[in-house]
């Protein structure tokens, strides 16, 4: 019988996440015996990531999407630990973590609490501060109103870094900056380019606080409906698509930043006090992991 799987993406075809999801489709059809049709809806047509999470938990409207861990915090508070700010030392460390199964406990928690199955990991963008005024040191960061993703750890870390974070829906960020609700956000180059945040916030500060981890999430309810063979195919394709996506974004990230810089769309600033920032943030990371009973996990990530 014919089979259709449905996905959703915030972005257009040129974004690494969309490329990852399209690759996933290709790979499924490569490995599966039957023909699977993929219906991938782009450009936030069906909403933004928190909406996708709602759909996926219920097994309605779509079957898979790429979701930022912070958007899963509502259900499984520990999940955002997988890419909280300043957790990875560098790309190598990040790669080592994602190539291992150290995040398995978080995957289990997500499956148990929200019936969501992680089938692979994309990501690889480096997140920086994007603001409507220049920020190049701690003094200038102090009290800076910025939008953060909807997870307590995000708010706490940037709060600890002396900024004033607030969790605003992604679809309202552009307007929030323009009308002065916040003065900026933090994001990776690909999304900055796609959503043209630089039109309202042209200053990019190289805090390099996160290297993103973006799970490819499959609805548990949809997954259960698949045949065992198909489940195996989805898992294999998801893992490989994730690897492909990580390679794409980690190579494109720097290029996109340079591209916007050369087009005079952004002004890039170094951040003078990154070490001090790190010192302010580490205790918060530790305390938060302890609250969640995830100290062992955090240690395991850092030991990689």
């Amino acid at each position: 019988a014919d089979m259709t799987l449905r996905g959703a993406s915030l972005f257009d075809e040129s974004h690494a996440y969309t490329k990852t999801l399209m690759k996933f489709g290709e790979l499924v059809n490569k490995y599966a015996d039957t023909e699977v049709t993929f219906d991938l809806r782009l450009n936030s047509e069906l909403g933004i990531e928190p909406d996708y999470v709602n759909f996926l938990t219920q097994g309605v409207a779509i079957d898979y999407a790429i979701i930022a861990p912070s958007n899963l915090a509502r259900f499984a508070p520990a999940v955002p630990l997988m890419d909280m700010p300043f957790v990875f030392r560098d790309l190598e460390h990040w790669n080592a973590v994602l190539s291992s199964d150290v995040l398995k406990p978080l995957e289990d928690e997500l499956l148990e609490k929200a019936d969501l199955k992680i089938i692979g990991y994309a990501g690889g963008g480096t997140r920086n501060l994007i603001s409507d005024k220049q920020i190049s040191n701690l003094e200038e960061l102090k009290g800076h109103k910025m939008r953060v993703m909807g997870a307590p750890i995000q708010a706490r870390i940037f709060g600890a870094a002396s900024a004033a974070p607030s969790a605003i829906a992604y679809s309202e960020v552009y307007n929030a900056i323009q009308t002065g609700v916040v003065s900026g956000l933090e994001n990776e180059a690909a999304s900055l380019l796609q959503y043209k945040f630089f039109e309202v916030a042209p200053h990019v500060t190289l805090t390099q606080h996160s290297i993103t981890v973006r799970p490819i999430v499959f609805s548990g309810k949809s997954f259960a409906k698949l045949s065992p063979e198909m489940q195996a195919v989805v898992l294999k394709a998801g893992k490989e698509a994730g690897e492909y996506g990580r390679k794409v974004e980690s190579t494109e990230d720097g290029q996109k930043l340079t591209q916007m810089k050369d087009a005079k769309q952004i002004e890039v600033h170094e951040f003078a006090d990154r070490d001090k920032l790190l010192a302010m943030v580490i205790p918060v990371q530790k305390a938060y992991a302890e609250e969640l009973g995830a100290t062992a996990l955090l240690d395991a990530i850092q030991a990689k």
Partner: protein
Amino acid sequence: MIITTGIACLLLVGTFLVLVLLRVPVAFALGIATIPVVVLDIRLTPFLIMDRMFQSYDSFILLAVPFFLLAANLMNSGKITDRLIELSRVLTGWLPGGLGQVNVAVSMLFAGISGSSTADAAGCGKILIPAMIKQGYSPRFAVAITACSSVMGVIIPPSILMVVWGGVMSISVGALFLAGAVPGFLIAAALMGTVYAYARIYDYPTAGKPSWRDFCSAFKGAWLALMTPVLVIGGIVGGIVTPTESAIIAAFYSLILGMFVYRTINPKELVSVLYETGRFASISLFAIGTASAFGWMLAYYNVPRLIVGLLTNLEFGQFGTSLVIAALFLLFGLFIDAIPTIIILGTVLFPVATAAEIHPVVFAIIGIISLAFGLVTPPYGLCLLISASIANLNVVHVLRDTVIILMPMLLILLIVILFPEIALWLPKTLMPATFK
């Protein structure tokens, strides 16, 4: 089963139209219309109807709506409206059709302070409609001019519709505010011309020549109220405050004027103002929720893509596309409230406008003026309903006068479509950074 785009479109729009024609409240009709596709399509469940509605309230932009209404209601109950009427009387009352001119002028002043047309129709209408009837104006004309002039409330800044539009489509609210000013004044001029013509034909009286002393006392009474636009528009255009904050500042300012300066609001009245604001705001906001569910269903079935493809293929060009956009907003405005229409139709037409090289700000102004007309066009015209109920008239009776008064206003819409620079000039001059 899985429903195709065509059938889904037919089911959604068809069910909605049938329900609305049979007088099911619009907010419920939008929600109920999503049920057939949800039942028939295996991929959808009732969860989606509730979820799409509920999540639409998670918005800092919509938070501005109750505060703008609160500010307007406080102006009415604080008798600030009366002072504005008095000022309008000394300014325009001596013209032929005196109280008619006053009605237009006060709506213009009110529009510059408040973002709500319905509050204008209710507040000014309550005073001016009886006064006009007493002076021998036909009640039908009094109701029609009150309703038609109140639409300036959402065209002249500040404007609730512009705040929502800017939020939904990521356009500068400040630029929209400025872009609405000139078209708004042109509409005021068109209305005053219409009143003049009426006065000549039906021999309507003037409201008397004011003395110098009248003029001074009217100005003295109203100048504090006239500072509100400076606070609100200046604050937003200057990027100092958010729309929600500006609305709350305006509300506080009106409250202080009403309680301590003019001493016209007492605590008991304040309680009823708070309740009325909540009641009225939630009725329109609730409709936004079901409209979001409806709009999401349309998007799920690719209806927007279909419409965009269709309209883009026709290649009407800039002028033709603008006309189609205005016509669609006018059509929707007949049946649905303005804010839900922005959510359902505005987002669909945005790419069409972009493809036709219509500037986003011009697109917004065309949309908002067209939607403003929807406030006075039956079957669903809130301002007309409010005005008619003040004079105990049925909407049907004031239809002819409303249409006559709307004609010159439509002409202004056409002129803005023909010469978009009318809208763009002010924001381009004052906010050049937004237009680079």
